[in-house]
């Protein structure tokens, strides 16, 4: 089966891409395994610590309050754990705690579902709630996607205008385009980091009482939409603390999430573009090499064809001329049918002579004619070329 050139290109491109995909996939698996090993070595000691601590607590409790037996305690703890999972904090008086499903918290929850962050500190527990959650997410996620795209576009335009201004500033400095682009991207990244990462982290640290690392951790985990839920702004997640939030706190957090997500999206698409450019360049380079090879073979074959053509034409021409000379000679020597060759015969013959000489010359027989013939020719008057043509016409 013969493939057209385009199909061939496609096949080659497909083959190359499969290799790239498998390579990248293996890399990801390797990355996961490496991460797993590191997480295990970092976290398992802590986990064992926590486990021992709570176990000792339990034993202490049991020993101190001897009227409680183990099974009773287990039962209580089971209930407590499921209550905690539903968001009810069983410690302290249960009447004062604000509901996790009042309007503002539910609004926040809806937001986490749509942005696919999904903290999980609140989650629906009824069947109806879960079904509604599915339907809600099905419609809401694309909606949020469009919104984010719009916000990202606006951010992009602002960024573009900023770049123009920067370029104008630097125009006198004769800095190359790529340098300007690199500098402006760096500025964008830095400025964005400051505005959407560092500043919110500082605010969270102050309001929520988290450590600096915890605030940064929360910001990154939220803006990448991972959303573990161990830290949630505005939900009082550090146990034992009772923070009074201002009314506008949660909406502002929400707005920050929206713009921060758009920022991360822009960064991501930038990284994607770079990767595309790099892969395109490698593709181009490989493509160039192949193009060069193809060009070389094409040139060689074209030259070959050209040479063949030229040689064949030359041979053909020479053959034709030889044939025409032969005909002239034969007609001159007496078998010519033309009657007009009587009076002007002499002249014609002179011409013929001249013509013959000329033809001989042209046929490359390289006879050198004396200038006398030229003189006689001019006496007759006809233009050599015209005469030649007319005579040849006669001959034909």
């Amino acid at each position, binding site marked *: 089966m013969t493939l057209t050139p385009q199909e061939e290109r*496609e096949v080659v*491109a497909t083959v190359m891409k499969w290799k790239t*995909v498998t390579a*990248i996939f293996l890399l*990801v698996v390797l*990355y*996961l395994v490496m*991460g797993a*090993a590191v997480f*295990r070595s*970092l*976290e*398992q000691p*802590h*986990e064992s610590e*926590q486990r021992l*601590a709570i176990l000792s607590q339990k034993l202490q409790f049991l020993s101190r*309050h001897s*009227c*409680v037996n183990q099974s009773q305690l287990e039962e209580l703890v089971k*209930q*407590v*754990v499921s*209550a905690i999972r*539903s968001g*009810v904090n069983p410690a302290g008086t249960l009447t004062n705690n604000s*509901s*996790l*499903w009042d309007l503002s918290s*539910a*609004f926040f929850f809806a*937001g*986490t579902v749509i942005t*696919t*962050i*999904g903290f*999980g500190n609140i989650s629906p527990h*009824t069947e109806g709630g879960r079904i509604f*959650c*599915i339907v809600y997410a099905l419609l809401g996620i*694309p909606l949020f*996607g469009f919104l*984010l*795209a719009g916000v*990202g*576009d606006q951010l992009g335009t602002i960024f573009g205008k900023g770049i123009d201004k920067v370029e104008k500033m630097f125009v006198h400095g004769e800095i190359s385009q790529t340098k300007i682009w690199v500098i402006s991207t760096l500025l964008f990244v830095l400025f964005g980091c400051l505005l959407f990462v560092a500043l919110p982290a500082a605010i969270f640290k102050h309001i929520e009482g988290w*450590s600096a690392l915890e605030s*940064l*951790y929360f910001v*990154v*985990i939220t803006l990448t939409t*991972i*959303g*573990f839920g161990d830290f949630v702004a505005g939900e009082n997640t550090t*146990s034992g603390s009772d923070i009074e939030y201002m009314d506008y706190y949660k909406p502002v957090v929400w707005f920050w999430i929206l713009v921060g*997500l758009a920022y991360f999206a*822009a960064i*991501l*698409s930038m990284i994607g573009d770079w990767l595309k450019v790099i892969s*395109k360049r490698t593709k181009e380079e490989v493509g160039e090499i192949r193009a060069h090879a193809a060009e070389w073979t094409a040139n060689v074959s074209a030259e070959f064809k050209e040479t063949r053509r030229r040689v064949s034409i030359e041979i053909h021409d020479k053959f034709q001329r030889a044939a025409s000379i032969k005909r002239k000679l034969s007609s001159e020597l007496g078998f010519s049918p033309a009657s007009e060759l009587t009076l002007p015969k002499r002249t014609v013959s002179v011409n013929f002579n001249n013509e013959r000489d000329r033809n001989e010359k042209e046929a490359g027989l390289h006879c050198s004619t004396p200038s006398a013939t030229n003189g006689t020719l001019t006496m007759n008057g006809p233009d050599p070329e015209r005469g030649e043509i007319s005579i040849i016409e006669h001959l034909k």
Partner: protein
Amino acid sequence: MRSAGRSWLLLTGFILFYVIYLLFGALIFSSIERPVEEKLRHDMEVLKREFLNQSCVSAASLDDFLLRVLAANKYGVSVLGNVSVTSNWDLAASMFFANTLVTTIGYGQATPLSDTGKAFSIFYALIGVPFTMLVLTACVQRLLYPLVLAPVSLLQRSGLEPRSATAFHFMLLLFLVVLCFFVAPAAIFTVVEGSWTFLDGIYFCFISLCTIGLGDFVPGMQSGQKYRPLYLGSVMVYLFLGLMMMYLLLRTFHKLSDIHGLTTLLQLPRCEDSDSDEDRDPIVDRGEASQSQTEKAASRPLEPGSQVSYNTISKG
């Protein structure tokens, strides 16, 4: 100038509609969940009182104990029974955790406790999330031809007109994905996880494949789970494949809406076709080849890790 004004108007319209949508969701969630919460709270109160009545424990010490239980539980350490054998951080579970991190699902049933763990998570996520997005995008590019373009051209050759061919194909693909990646896994989960109902299984599949990852259901966390590493590994594979299929669905839907003119109507960015030659062929074979698809894709895929909203934003 007019188009810029129009785009701003559309954006504000979107934001407004979005806020209304959130409010609507909040109202419904509130009305559904709040009564249940009230009941649970009431039950807890009763339980506590009962416990305190029949024992010598004082309220203060009980509260103290409960607080500690709460703190431990937040980190996934259960206080029930003896020290449970299953760790949240053995190699299989750590890999599962790393997987939830890079796909941005992020269940949160196990979170890094140490400071170093948190710092490492930050870097790991910042590198791993774009990386995973890249892999998913590349895989979907490869799958686009055999799963979407070829069947659609086949349908067209058998006589359907382009628009209905694409719509029919999309419906078919949607049905298959729902069957293979929601219904079937949910059934499997119901069997393997003792306490999950079928609805719980579907809920879990949906929440995971949209990378929301609330974390109220996480497979493999029951004590006494047999073949836990194998189970977690297969769940990871399922999540990856499922994310790919969701992304593929989204790309197909985007192309479909391009052809049906929805994207131009809403002034949304068109589906970006990658630099590869074969992707430049529109779904509609040759017929509407005039549609130039050169604008940047704004739609991000539903899943993963990627995407801005990683997930919602382009995975295109």
